[in-house]
C-alpha cells in the first residue's frame, strides 16, 4: 500500500511542479515548501533532479538571481511549451480521475469504507 502511494505521488509530482510554476517563478526551497503544504511531501534529492530533467526537456527555464540575502537562488519559470504540456497533462489527469471516480462509485466498496470493509 505504501509503495503504491509513493508511486502515485511520484506520478503526479511532475504535473504538480508544472502547475505551481504556472502561477509564478519559484526557487527550489519554495517549491519544496509549496508541494509539502499542498500534500506532496518531497525531498531535495527528488525535486532537483526532476527540475533538471524538466529544464532539459525545455518545459521550464532556470535563472540564477542574486537577491538581498547575499547568496544566489535559482529561479525556475514555465516556458510556453511547458504551459501547453501542463494543460495537456491536467486534462488527462481529470479524465483519468473522473473514470476512476466512476469506477469507485460503481464498486461495492466505497473509497471511504474500504478500511472498514477490510477489517470486516
Amino acid at each position, binding site marked *: 500500500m505504501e509503495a503504491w502511494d509513493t508511486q502515485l505521488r511520484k506520478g503526479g509530482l511532475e504535473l504538480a511542479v508544472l502547475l505551481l510554476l504556472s502561477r509564478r517563478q519559484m526557487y527550489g*526551497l519554495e517549491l519544496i515548501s509549496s508541494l509539502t503544504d499542498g500534500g506532496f511531501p518531497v525531498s*531535495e*534529492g*527528488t525535486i*532537483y*533532479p526532476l527540475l*533538471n530533467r524538466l529544464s532539459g526537456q525545455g518545459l521550464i527555464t532556470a535563472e*540564477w538571481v*542574486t537577491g538581498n540575502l547575499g547568496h544566489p537562488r*535559482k529561479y525556475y519559470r514555465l516556458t510556453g511549451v511547458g504551459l501547453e504540456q501542463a494543460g495537456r497533462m491536467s486534462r488527462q489527469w481529470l479524465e483519468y480521475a473522473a473514470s476512476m471516480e466512476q469506477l469507485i462509485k460503481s464498486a461495492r466498496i466505497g473509497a471511504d469504507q474500504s478500511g472498514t470493509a477490510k477489517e470486516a
Partner: protein
Amino acid sequence: MQVESQVMVREFNRRLRTALSSAPNHVRVEAALEVESHVMDVLSRQKSGLSESEQVAEILSGFGSPEEYARAIMAQLPGVQVVDVPTGAREVSMAAIDLMRGLGRLLVALIRRLVALLMTGLHWLRVGLVWALGKLRWGVRALRGPAGRLITWLGRRANQLRRGAHVLRLWLGRRAHDAGVASRGARTVAAALFRWAIALLRRLLRAAGYTALGGLALAAFAFAGLTALLPDVVGYWVYHIQKDVNGYLTDIRRQTVFLFDQSMQAQFTSTGNAMLVGAILFGLSMVGLISLLVWNARRRRSTVVDHS
C-alpha cells in the same frame, strides 16, 4: 556559513562531482551549485534549536548520500546510462586511477634519470677506455703476438673515436655559433626590454617606498597575494566582506564558473572570491602607483630651475 558547515558542503560536493564523473561538465557544476544554494536558502530561514552544523547535516541528508543523489540526477539525464557501481568500488577505482597516474609519472622520471645516468656513464666509460688503452698501448709496445696487435688496434680505434668526437664537437659548436649570430638581434632586444622593465620596477619601488600611498599599495599587493595563497582562511573573511558587494562579484563568478575546469571548481567558491578581491585590490594599487608617478613627474618638471 561557518567554516565547519562550509567544509561539510564542500565535502558533499566533492563526492557528488566524483560520482557524477561520467555526466557532462555543466551538470556537475550545476548540481554542486544547487546543493550550496539550497543549503544557504534553508539556513537563511534560521531554524531554531539546532546548531548550524547540525542544520547543515540535516539539509544534506535530504539529498541522500552524494552517490545516491548523483544516481538520481543521472537517471533523469537523457542518453546517460546509469551504471550501478558500488560506492566503495567507485572510490577504489578512482584511487586506482590516481595511483596509476602517480606510477606513470614516477616511471617517466625514473626513465629520464636512467637515460641521463647512462649517458654520463657512457661518456666516462669512453674517456676511461681511451685513457687506459693509450697507457696500455705504450706500456706493452714491446708485446708481440695477437694480444699486442689487439691492444694496438683497440688503441687506434679509440684514438679515432676521440678525434671523431672532437670534430663533431667543433662542428656542433660552429652551428651553435651561427645560430647565436642569427638570434643576436632578438637577444639584444630582449635584454633591452629586460633592462627597461627592471628600471621601471626600480622607479616604481622608489616612488612607492617614499610615500604612504606606496606603502598602502604594497600592503594591498601583499593582501592580494595572501588571499590567493590562503583561500580557506582569508576567503572566509572575504566571503563576509563580499556580502556587501555581492551583486557584482557573484555575477562575475557565475559567468566565470563555466570557463574553469571542474578541478578548479572544487575550490572555486572561496578561492574565486579571494582572487577576485585580490585582483581588484591589486588593480586599485596599480592605479594609485601610476597616478603617483605621474604626479611626481609633473612636480619635478615644475621645479626644474632654468639656468639660461
